[in-house]
């Protein structure tokens, strides 16, 4: 990774400046030109390092109080089909396959968002029925101990 990319990522990881021309302000903060900032971000977008530049909405402010992790156990040869089917639902924001544990048969993980935890549970039940999945668990959040943006390249002092 180019040191100037690292510097840019460090400058932006807490979010864009709140100005009307945020890339110009970001450029000032990391000592690059606005052109270079935009060029580097477009390159990172193109090669996938930058997933998206976008706003994150607080779900509670748009009437969505529910937030449930559901884990699903399906035979290996059906995992990708079921994973993709679950991912196709708008209420699913994250869908992954992960390793099973020795006493933990669940390999598919989905975050479900809805008006309430009960509404999320009802959706999961509906999807399980439609997909013929009989073994799944709902793991509702009891308490949030931490939720923060990742910190990248924090302990470096790049000169470029």
């Amino acid at each position, binding site marked *: 990774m180019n040191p100037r990319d690292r510097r840019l990522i460090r400058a932006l990881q807490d979010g864009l400046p709140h100005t009307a021309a945020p890339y110009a302000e970001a450029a000032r903060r990391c000592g690059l030109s606005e052109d270079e900032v935009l060029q580097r971000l477009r390159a990172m977008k193109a090669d996938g390092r930058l997933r998206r530049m976008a706003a994150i909405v607080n779900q509670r402010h748009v009437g*969505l109080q529910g937030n449930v992790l559901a884990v699903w156990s399906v035979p290996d040869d059906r995992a990708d089909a079921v994973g993709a089917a679950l991912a196709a639902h708008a209420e699913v924001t994250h869908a992954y396959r992960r390793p099973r544990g020795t006493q933990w048969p669940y390999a598919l993980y989905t975050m479900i968002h809805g008006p309430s935890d009960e509404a999320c549970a009802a959706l999961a039940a509906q999807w399980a029925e439609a997909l013929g999945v009989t073994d799944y668990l709902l793991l509702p959040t009891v308490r949030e101990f931490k939720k923060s943006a990742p910190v990248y390249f924090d302990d470096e002092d790049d000169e470029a």
Partner: protein
Amino acid sequence: MDALDRRLLAALQDGFPLDERPYARLAERLGLDPSHEADLHRRALRLLDDGTLRRIGPSFDSRRLGYEPTLAAVRVPPERVALAAQVVNRYSEITHNYQRSGSPWSLWFTVIARSPQRQQTILADIRRDLDLADDDMMVLPVLHLYKIDVRFPTSPDNPATPTPPSPHDVPK
């Protein structure tokens, strides 16, 4: 929140333009005259200020940045969860940490470390400090990503209905 706020929220979730004048581009995207730039910027500031928007910024693919991310779960009894959470939270590499019901695995957290070695060190330290048996921690890295799309519908009737799919929610 008025109708334009809701449309702006949807547009901002779809993507913040990589452009010298992002709010002018957003105005165009919403079918407005570019002279609405200042108005949209003011609205975005208000939505940030009142907490409707958590942030406007980049989401990076941590693996592609060379980092090693994983989810982990530990099995600790309910009365020890709060203390265990503090132990886990000591590391800046922990980005999410939740107590969850529904299974004996009571604490779920994500680690994004700068190397596989650093990830192993953190997980080993946590195991040791929580005095966990080997089978009391599951390390669950992503094997396959089906979807990441954190966009929420912003239609005014949203609270009453279980989030109807809308065109912008279709995964790309």
